[in-house]
């Protein structure tokens, strides 16, 4: 086997960038940045000899020369009773919540890019759904990346108190059409007892950009969390999504849809921890690949000792629209309890020839038949997004990205 090597020297001195903003903000946030920087120094940049980075080569990020940019998130919606805003606008009561919770879910250990995000942290987007609050409208958070060589570190903290109900939509995009920028984003979601939280994350970064995202959530007793991760852009995209089901009766549904074309690469990692008995999790991550693109799905479900009556399903269907695409899919179940129900499955396939013929035999054009089938495939995920305006928008975005299929081969 090849010798183990560290990552090549980076063009950007990521450690040194920290020093430029280390003095800004209150004491506790400076301390947070300093600790994150220590962690980043300890972790170093990952490389493909590490198991967690085996299928994703970050060389283009390592080779880039980046300048940190300030986060300027646009936050809207929520309605009565919901507190949304940036850290710089937060009153003392909210600040206390941030101090107590920031970084406690998205542990930087083993996550160098979470450490990088922390070491350069400048602005934080905050969504607080107080106890018993039912948000009247979805909260929308829009992150727009800086110029071509910018390093963006959006950070979001969502806190839902007991019985709170709300929907949060977080989008990532860039105005730079050429891309070239790098976004390393971290979002933490705390779902209290009996909460009902829906979180939709849309990654539509510019074509030549790099996106590394992390979402980490914790659901307490009786709480319900639905996440949808839609990945449409970036040259290289790595998304880690983790949920801890921490209280009995908690449940999470995680949906994912990734579309890749040209030579784009998307790497999805999910990690669900069933920490206590009687929790349910369901994951469906769907990939649509064309041209020479590659995708990775590694889904890990961990059932802790004593977490009896765990009910966990995971599936990763992939649709390959060209012969030159590659998909790596690996379900990983770690079960330390004996009375559980866990299923997983992955499929990799092309457009169904029988379905294509069926549609054509009814008079539908081969191209249109192919598009219908791909839209139908994506539709199973998009149909579960409950905000109609977002669902409609995503449907048309997805349709716009679909290649003209060679359905005539039917």
């Amino acid at each position, binding site marked *: 086997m090849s010798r183990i090597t560290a990552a090549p020297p980076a063009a950007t001195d990521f450690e040194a960038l920290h020093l430029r903003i280390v003095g800004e903000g209150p004491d506790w946030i400076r301390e947070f940045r300093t600790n994150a920087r220590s962690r980043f120094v300890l972790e170093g940049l990952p490389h493909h000899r590490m198991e967690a980075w085996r299928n994703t080569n970050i060389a283009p990020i390592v080779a880039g020369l980046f300048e940190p940019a300030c986060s300027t998130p646009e936050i809207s919606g929520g309605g009565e009773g919901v507190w949304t805003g940036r850290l710089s606008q937060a009153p003392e009561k909210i600040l206390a919540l941030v101090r107590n919770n920031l970084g406690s879910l998205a542990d930087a250990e083993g996550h160098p890019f979470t450490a990088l995000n922390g070491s350069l942290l400048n602005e934080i987007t905050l969504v607080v759904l107080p106890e018993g609050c039912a948000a009247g409208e979805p909260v929308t958070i829009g992150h727009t990346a800086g110029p071509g060589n910018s390093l963006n570190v959006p950070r979001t903290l969502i806190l839902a108190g007991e019985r709170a109900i709300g929907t949060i939509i977080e989008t990532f995009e860039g105005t730079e059409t050429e891309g070239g920028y790098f976004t390393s984003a971290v979002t933490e979601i705390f779902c209290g007892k009996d909460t009902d939280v829906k979180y939709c994350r849309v990654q539509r970064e510019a074509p030549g950009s790099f996106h590394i995202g992390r979402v980490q959530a914790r659901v307490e007793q009786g709480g319900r969390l639905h996440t949808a991760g839609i990945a449409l852009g970036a040259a290289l995209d790595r998304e880690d999504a983790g949920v801890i089901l921490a209280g009995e009766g908690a449940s999470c549904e995680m949906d994912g849809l990734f579309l890749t074309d040209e030579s784009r690469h998307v790497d999805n990692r999910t990690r669900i921890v069933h920490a206590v008995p009687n929790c349910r999790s369901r994951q469906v991550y769907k990939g649509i690949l064309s041209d020479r693109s590659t995708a990775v799905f590694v889904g890990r479900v961990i059932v802790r000792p004593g977490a009896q009556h765990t009910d966990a399903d995971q599936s990763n269907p992939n649709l390959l629209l060209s012969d030159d695409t590659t998909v790596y899919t690996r379900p990983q179940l770690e079960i330390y309890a004996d009375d559980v129900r866990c299923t997983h499955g992955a499929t990799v396939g092309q457009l169904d020839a029988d379905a294509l*013929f*069926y549609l054509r*035999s*009814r*008079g*539908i054009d081969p191209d*249109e038949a192919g598009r219908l089938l791909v839209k*139908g495939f994506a539709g199973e995920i998009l*149909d579960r997004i409950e905000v109609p305006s977002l669902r409609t928008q995503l449907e048309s975005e997805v349709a716009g990205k679909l290649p003209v299929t060679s359905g005539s081969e039917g």
Partner: protein
Amino acid sequence: MLSVKNLKASIDGTEILKGINLDVKAGEVHAIMGPNGSGKSTLAQVIAGRDTYEVTEGSVTYMGKDLLELPPEERAREGIFLAFQYPVEIPGVNNTYFLKAALNAARKHQGLEELDAMDFLMLVREKMKIIQLDEELLHRPVNAGFSGGEKKRNEIFQMAVLDPKLAVLDETDSGLDIDALRTVAEGVNSLRGKDKAIVVVTHYQRLLEHIVPDYVHVLADGRVVRSGGRELALELEKEGYSWVEQQTAGPAETRG
């Protein structure tokens, strides 16, 4: 309307149709019967344009056109409809959306104005009554999670909406209980007409009690071995297919 001459077709090098001759005129109902593996479904699929079968010899003429030259979608727009033996489940594609796209593709091809949502809905409602299809199925993805009977009913419902000139029903009776069979048959009968033709492919005689054919053809080992009137179906019912196979000329090999 349809003229099949010495049609030979094979799949992966195995010849299944070994020279079929068949003439269907407007207004007629033809039944094609035969044991499993005789080539009935292959004939239906070749007429609809399935390209997994390679036509090696012979011709199919439909309304004066060389049918084998046309891709499946054009055959459909020209008025050919195949009710599938195994209707395909298409998750995520809405039944109504699909049917509207299909109908308007045909209308456009025929130089007719495309139907808008309202007109389409009215048409659909009217046809649903004939087939007694549950309206709820309209809003579901095509055939996804339908029972066997619902799928077959949905085929005939599509046929009713698309109003084909030549309908080929491939084992539409299989998997139907007697009540569903009667409903489906009534639906088919309501679509009979002077300028239309129906080819019913079936293993059993029972569908033909409800859809009464003008002609019955018996297929065995890729050839039409007997043709006759409706009494031929009754004869088959009594004697079984072994009777036909014994009469089949040529090699004694039968396809399973």
